[in-house]
């Protein structure tokens, strides 16, 4: 059974159709790339899968759960986490505190546990420290532990966003342009990171414009244009697909030159 | 009888519309909810009152002076109170306007006390008859002036350079800035216009009803209901909403006890907030 299955998903805003009859699936531990020109509906798709937007029609299945129409926090609890196109986290909190927020849905100490500071509360706090350390290690953030999120370098802030998502212990991670604004060195570190995340058993759906990243990490890619899937296949297949090339020809976000030099 | 009530309601509604329009343009163009709007309305009433009563100024001139003086006050308020908050979250404007409300209302209380005042206009009680409907001369004047103001506003916003700049800013703030429209000028002007409208409304209502420092709060709430109902930012919505509220208030007074009338008004406010925060014609 596929980890995520999207069936005939459609989303329209008034007269504008953002996503049109879209179907695809992601397998366990698979890395699926999602590319397309700006405005193709990629982020909208993320919003639909994570419950931020309700679809106009169609269904989304995560494992055996039908998640269409569920609120975002429930979907996160089921195991889907995401990052956002622009940096998004709690700027005035420390890295550590940011990561602990991600731990929320995996802990359960409630009001009475808070007031009485029960052993459950204290144990969970300890576990949070451990898990947060693990994530920081994975992402290279240990040295920034007590720094405020707004004060660390931008590339590290991107790592932080991924880290908070990882702290929710997802089985599917949605990354929205994680390489944006990164230089080549930072980008290759990101690629390593993504592969390490996959090795932990987490499937990834990644939106990217940097084709080096896409070609490097993705096993499969599908292409969105004007809300429709125009192609799906392996990186090589996509590279040679004439329709894809035509869609991107002349578009600055698709860097053909760097693919050829790959 | 019904026609009489509807006429009274229409007159009241026109005045309400005037207050509501001022509130809605600040929201539409600047994204600010100015709760001190009712206090400017009150000050306009007092300005007109003192001019008419102490200096025996003609009411219509007093009205113009009230509007202009409130317009100037609006510019001062925008510069001192709201502009320093530029760039901060929306809620800060709201809170600061609450502070302004408290400041102005209590300042007025200290200066003028709680005694009710009224403008004893010489021709106020002259009666004009339209068939079965009776209207006092002053009511006729106020509705006539309100309609004139609204029409004037419409032409101004549609056809004048500033009016077009304001509309551009409302639709796309950043786009307007790149075209060279100065946000600060627009802010100043919008506040000036909104306050002038409030001042005029205050003078007009003050000529019909009692004037006292707390008179601004209830119209503020009503204006807010109208604006939310008619659509935040929509002038047409403010007019339609004002008329509806005016008429339902007059008709309601006949059939519902006055205390619970207020309760129903608040319940309607809550329902509108919950189900139609964009109102009938709203843009956001």
């Amino acid at each position, binding site marked *: 059974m596929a980890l995520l299955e999207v069936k005939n998903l459609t989303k329209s805003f008034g007269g504008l159709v953002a996503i049109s009859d879209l179907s695809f699936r992601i397998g366990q531990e698979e890395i699926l790339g999602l590319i397309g020109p700006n405005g193709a509906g990629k982020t909208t798709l993320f919003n639909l899968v994570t419950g931020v937007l309700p679809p106009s029609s169609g269904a989304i299945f995560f494992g055996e759960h039908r998640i269409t129409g569920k609120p975002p926090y429930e979907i996160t609890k089921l195991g889907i986490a995401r990052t956002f196109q622009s940096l998004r986290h709690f700027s005035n909190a420390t890295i550590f505190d940011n990561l602990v927020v991600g731990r929320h849905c995996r802990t359960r100490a409630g009001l009475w546990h808070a007031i*009485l500071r029960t052993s459950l509360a204290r144990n969970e706090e300890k576990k949070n420290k451990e898990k947060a350390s693990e994530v920081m290690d994975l992402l290279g953030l240990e040295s920034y532990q007590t720094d405020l999120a707004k004060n660390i370098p931008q590339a590290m802030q991107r790592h932080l966003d991924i880290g908070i998502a990882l702290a929710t212990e997802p089985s599917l991670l949605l990354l929205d342009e994680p390489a944006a604004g990164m230089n080549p060195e930072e980008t290759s570190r990101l690629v390593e990171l993504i592969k390490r995340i996959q090795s932990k058993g987490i499937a990834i759906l990644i939106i990217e414009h940097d084709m080096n990243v896409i070609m490097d990490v993705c096993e499969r890619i599908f292409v969105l244009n004007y809300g429709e899937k125009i192609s799906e296949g392996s990186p090589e297949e996509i590279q040679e697909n004439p329709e894809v090339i035509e869609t991107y020809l002349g578009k600055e976000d698709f860097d053909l030159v760097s693919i050829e030099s790959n | 009888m019904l026609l009489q009530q509807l006429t009274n309601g229409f007159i009241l509604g026109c005045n309400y519309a005037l207050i509501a329009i001022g509130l809605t343009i600040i929201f539409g163009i600047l994204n600010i909810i100015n709760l001190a709007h009712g206090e400017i309305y009150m000050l306009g009433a007092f300005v007109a009152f003192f001019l008419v009563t102490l200096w025996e100024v003609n009411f219509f001139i007093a009205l113009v002076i009230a509007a202009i003086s409130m317009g100037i006050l609006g510019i001062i308020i925008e510069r001192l109170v709201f502009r320093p908050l530029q760039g901060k979250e929306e809620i800060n404007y709201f809170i600061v306007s609450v502070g302004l409300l408290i400041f102005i209302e209590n300042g007025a209380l200290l200066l003028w006390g709680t005694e009710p005042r009224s403008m004893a206009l010489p021709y106020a009680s002259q009666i004009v008859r339209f068939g079965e409907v009776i209207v006092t001369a002053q009511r006729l004047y106020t509705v006539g002036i309100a309609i004139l103001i609204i029409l004037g506003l419409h032409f101004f916003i549609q056809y004048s350079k500033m009016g077009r700049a304001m509309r551009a800013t409302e639709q796309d703030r950043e786009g307007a800035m790149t075209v060279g429209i100065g946000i600060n000028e627009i802010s100043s002007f919008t506040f000036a216009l909104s306050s002038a409208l409030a001042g005029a409304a205050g003078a007009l209502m003050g000529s019909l009803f009692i004037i006292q420092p707390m008179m601004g709060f209830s119209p503020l709430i009503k204006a807010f209901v109208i604006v939310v109902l008619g659509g935040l930012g929509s002038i047409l919505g403010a007019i339609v909403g004002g008329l509806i509220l005016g008429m339902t208030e007059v008709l309601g007074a006949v059939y519902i006890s006055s205390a619970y009338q207020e309760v129903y008004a608040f319940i309607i406010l809550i329902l509108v907030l919950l189900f139609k925060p964009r109102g009938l014609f709203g843009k956001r």
Partner: protein
Amino acid sequence: MGFKRFIAYLGALALLVALPFLIEGYPLHLVNISGIWIILALSLGLIQGYIGEISMGHAAFFGIGAYSSVLLTMNTGVSFWLALPAAGLVTMILGYAIGLVSLRLRGPYFAICTLAFGEIIRLIFINWRELTQGPDGITGIPSPSPIPLPFGETLSFSSKEAGYFLIYALVCLTIFVIYRIVNSRMGKAIMAIREDQDYAECMGINTMKYKRMVFSISTFFAGLAGCIFAHYMHFISPYSFTIGQSFDLVIMVIVGGMGTIIGPIIGAVILTLIPELLHAIKDYRLLIYGLMLMLIIIYFPHGIAGILKDLKDRCFRDGKKLGVNHGPAGS
């Protein structure tokens, strides 16, 4: 906890306990009234500082607590000591209901909705005479019933000193509960909601549930405060639970400093004591409040607590410069 801190807390506690023996009469009464406002401000501080929403109808919950406790003790003969938690619970239930409706809204819309509810409740207090005796208010509210002690003694609660201990015991309880909540998993969730509600929701936090919870806890404490107020003042009327008081509370929390525990306390103390201490400005009280609110929002958004914190930071920094404390070189 460090030794110095422990001594400081012990000292504060000692002062707290000794205070009613050091002052009496009207000043003691003022301290008591401040205490009630501290509880109210802290409860509103939960909503404003931690959920991050402005609530403009909070005095209504104060009133619900007061009236429900009075009705319980005077009409049905329930002991004060049962009426106290009951009043809190009644207020909390009504608070939960109002929260269900209002918390769907955000920012100014939420604020106006709470204002509307506050007004509706005030109008009910004024007009439902059978329940509340309307604008005349209710007089002759009894003090908390005496507690029997061993050896045939009783602990009576009719004096101001007794009132002091009761009120400040509640103040300590409120501070304790809020402190524990804020520093817990729940507290982190709430602050995440305050900073970026939609993002918090995406990171697995059930934002509506927590907003309702915090709102309910806040109204619970407001209800407790109302109950104590009624049985301390022996008289209540709808005029104590109006928009005026709601605005006072909003100002206390903002001027004192939102998002802290000490902020609302500072705000409550300043805004209840200062007008009393400076008789000359008593009439100008509200005028000054309005001005303070504007100044704080524009120039000191973190309130007085923020100003004090900045001063403290600067003092320590200067201390380092003077060579008093050598911190780690560089950073």
